[in-house]
């Protein structure tokens, strides 16, 4: 009787200890852990955990999270392939399609207008319109008029987009040919035209000085020295023309770079107009 009593007394301890026993690798626990990693922004580990349970736990939230994780770590092909698992009835289907557009734009920044006519719910349609229109700014030519371009954006973001639109339509480029021509007529003026005033004035002084020294030495019949200064002067003169053309090209490249950089920053701030889901609260 006492022995039976002992066993009965021990059973609650056993139950208690079992409540502390955890199978770390059960699908449910893996999901919980993956959710934590996802919310911590540890997408590489999160996706590894999600991938290991996606065949066991069929869940479109997991699928969209996998897509998102791959996108965040720059594995765009894997991210796009994950879309196939999200069924067309899922509420995340449109977000997945939008995420695919985002991936395409990050991978290859150019217009997404080929997807323009894809049917979608009104809210998603507006988000996609915004992304597609903004993506057009990466192209060589803008195919939309400004009014057609801006109608979909709200006031604040519309102003930014309007600024980018104008910058794209009329970029403040400097003509390399004109810069070269200016420097050929007045040494250094091509550099000044590009905005490099210090270089321009230096080029003007040095070339002018060498030209004067050459002239002065020829006049004084110091022919050897005169030819040395002529050679040096010609070298500076030609170098300055070349330098002015190069400066204008660099200036234009910088305009392009800053434009693309600014546009990318704007898109990142807007999270590429992705719908926002609160997965972490």
């Amino acid at each position: 009787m006492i022995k039976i009593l002992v066993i009965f007394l021990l059973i609650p301890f056993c139950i208690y200890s079992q409540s502390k026993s955890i199978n770390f690798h059960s699908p449910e626990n893996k999901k919980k852990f993956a959710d934590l990693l996802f919310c911590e922004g540890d997408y590489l580990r999160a996706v590894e955990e999600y991938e290991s349970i996606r065949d066991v736990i069929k869940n479109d939230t997991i699928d969209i999270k996998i897509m998102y994780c791959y996108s965040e770590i720059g594995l765009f092909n894997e991210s796009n392939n994950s879309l196939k698992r999200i069924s067309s009835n899922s509420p995340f289907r449109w977000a997945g399609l939008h995420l695919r557009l985002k991936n395409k734009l990050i991978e290859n920044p150019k217009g997404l207008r080929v997807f323009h006519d894809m049917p979608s719910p009104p809210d998603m349609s507006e988000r996609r319109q915004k992304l597609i229109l903004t993506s057009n700014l990466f192209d060589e030519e803008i195919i939309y008029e400004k009014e057609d371009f801006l109608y979909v954006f709200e006031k604040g973001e519309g102003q930014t987009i309007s600024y980018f639109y104008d910058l794209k339509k009329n970029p403040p480029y400097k003509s390399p040919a004109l810069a070269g021509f200016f420097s050929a007529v007045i040494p250094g003026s091509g550099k000044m035209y590009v905005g490099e005033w210090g270089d321009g004035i230096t080029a003007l002084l040095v070339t002018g000085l060498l030209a004067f020294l050459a002239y002065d030495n020829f006049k004084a019949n110091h022919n050897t020295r005169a030819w040395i200064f002529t050679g040096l002067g010609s070298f500076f003169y030609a170098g300055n023309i070349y330098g002015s053309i190069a400066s204008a090209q660099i200036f234009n490249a910088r305009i392009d770079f800053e434009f693309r950089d600014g546009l990318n920053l704007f898109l990142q701030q807007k999270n590429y107009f992705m719908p926002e889901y609160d997965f972490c609260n």
Partner: protein
Amino acid sequence: MTFVTELFFKIPLLAIVVINLQAQTTFIDQFYYAKKLFHEEKYFNAVTEFKRLLFFDDTNKYDFEANKFIGLSYKEGSKFSDAIYYFTLAEKNVQNNEELFETRIEIIKINILRRSTGRAFALLDSLQNDNRYINKKDEINYWRGWTYIFSDDWENASSNFESISPNHELKIFSDSINSEFYDVRLSKVLSIFVPGAGQFYTGEYVSGLISLGWNVLWGYLTINAFVDDRIFDGFMIGSLLWWRFYTGNLQNAEKFAVEKNLNITNDALRYLKNIYSGPKP
């Protein structure tokens, strides 16, 4: 009959004991599994498993150890900011002064590695001023010496190692490195009096000869122009050519000395990394 009764008692009792033991070993198994991954240098997986342990361990028993190992794993992967974050978490969960000291030293070592030596010095000062670590003076001085090494201050490094032991291996090493350095100021001063002499001093003989040659040539032409009463030519050659080569000679002398010193430092750090067997950051 008694045997059967005994058996009815012993089997459930044994089962309860086994089940209880298994439950208690769950967390410790996970801890040792993660630790094993760490020792096998599978740092990515080690971080995942330690994070998993932290997530499920509601007793907080492993908060210090797991966070410390995550920090160490991130450190091995050169993710220094992440490492400091997890060491700070470990620091919040220390059980005794020894653990606190150990964690602080790890944070100091990371600051040394990422060359935020100012922060390392501040932490070392706080440890030094802490009465609990009065018997850890040598260790504090040791890491202070390393901090000075990474600040490129071998003289102070040497005096810190000397305070541990007059014949400390790193004291002798720091002294030998210190004596190998070129004096940047001397190199420049030599070149002021004899163009090219600074380069000779740093062992750059060809550069020294070229520098001397240019200065002799343009110096001769400048003086010659003044002697011939060609004052304007003299000014022009002197200011545009001789002065340019003379100042270039001074800059070169300084540059070579700095470069050589950098090579000496890099060789020393390479030696400490690959050959030195004592504790390193």
